[in-house]
């Protein structure tokens, strides 16, 4: 698959020919136009609408909705909640990101087992899962608001520091760490720009653009999915959904984006 894509790029850029060779950024500019054209009418809105329905729907053994779930700003407050996550929650005595918090609420409010609540973390072709829709809905309710992740509780401090260690952790057959690709300014893989997640400006730009509707997959992808797929490309084993490491790394990245204006679900290639 990817080999075919490579060939496609090679072939088209070759046929694009001299003009492109003289002005290599013009290809990048056209891709900017492409992204702008998709901005109006993001299919993520379909997930947001479905998520709002699921949020209010009575489900699970307790036949209850999630409406009383405390996402960090108090029970039932959805507006702005994503800007303070991940966060320490007293009831679970854990730092939780949005996805793990939803799992906790599905267990405590709706009576699902943790296994049931975590069973389908990501959607796929012909497979719609509640988690993607809930994430799309809840994050959309923080659009336009500033990221404001706090590390006041010792467990929040610890999660941030552990996330930082993980960010620089080199491993696997390729010796890759997150920092290999996301630790310096103005780098790119092929033609894809790489945010430097250790700087505030880039971290803000990157973190506030997830979740995203990926046109290549026709799905809304959550931040948990973003980390899952990064580690796949890092040649690491499979990241477990809402695992402590995934939450620690999210805490590190989310806090680095503080002050950035949240603008997702977005739309990406």
């Amino acid at each position, binding site marked *: 698959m990817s080999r075919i*894509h490579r060939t496609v790029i090679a072939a088209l*850029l070759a046929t694009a020919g001299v003009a492109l060779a003289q002005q290599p950024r013009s290809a990048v500019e056209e*891709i900017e136009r*492409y992204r702008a054209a998709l901005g109006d009418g993001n299919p993520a809105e379909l997930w947001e609408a479905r998520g*709002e329905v699921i949020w209010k729907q009575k489900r699970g053994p307790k036949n209850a909705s999630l409406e009383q779930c405390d996402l960090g700003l108090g029970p039932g407050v959805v507006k702005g909640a994503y800007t303070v996550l991940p966060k320490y929650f007293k009831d679970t005595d854990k730092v939780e990101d949005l996805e793990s918090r939803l799992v906790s609420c599905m267990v405590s409010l709706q009576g699902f087992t943790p296994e049931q609540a975590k069973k389908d973390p990501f959607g796929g072709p012909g497979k719609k899962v509640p988690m993607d829709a809930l994430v799309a809905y809840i994050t959309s309710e923080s659009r336009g608001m500033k990221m404001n992740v706090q590390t006041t509780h010792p467990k929040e401090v610890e999660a941030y520091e552990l996330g930082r260690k993980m960010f620089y952790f080199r491993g696997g057959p390729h010796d890759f760490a997150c920092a290999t690709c996301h630790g310096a300014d103005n780098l790119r893989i092929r033609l894809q720009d790489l945010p430097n997640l250790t700087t505030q400006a880039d971290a803000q730009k990157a973190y506030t653009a997830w979740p995203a509707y990926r046109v290549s997959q*026709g799905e809304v992808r959550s931040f948990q999915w973003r980390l899952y797929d990064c580690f796949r490309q890092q040649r690491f084993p499979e990241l477990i959904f809402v695992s402590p490491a995934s939450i620690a790394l999210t805490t590190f990245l989310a806090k680095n984006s503080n002050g950035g204006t949240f603008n997702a679900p977005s739309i990406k*290639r």
Partner: protein
Amino acid sequence: MDGSRRRILKGTGSAAVLGLAMAAGLFRTGSAWAEWNKAAFDTKSLADAVKAMGGGAPAESKDIVITSPDIAENGAVVPFTIASKVANTESMALLVEKNPNILAANFQIPQGTEPWINTRVKMGQTSNVIALVKTADGKFYYASKEVKVTLGGCGG
């Protein structure tokens, strides 16, 4: 989108709603509803597509404008706006020359509706894209532009 402005008709497959839709004049004629020009959607070339739509040789026209990025970051979703200033435009179609079947979509433009459509199609590879206009007197006109398809990302 403001949820309060949107009313959703539940159970749209039901006979009741179907009856409602019919009463509302949703169906232009008895079976117009199910009209889908299979022959046109099976064609591989512009000439064959026009033929399947009941026309002769189409003429190139500067009164048809295709707006799209010259390079698509992903062929799965390529945005297009097609607009026609051809007098008495009755329908507008979007065709992708190198797709397995050339015709992507065809729009009937009734009186009062602007000959202007914005939609998104799939492109298997870099290709010419054609906007095809049919006028009320059965004549066909077209314009085309090339769109290059890439796929970025980490690879592997």
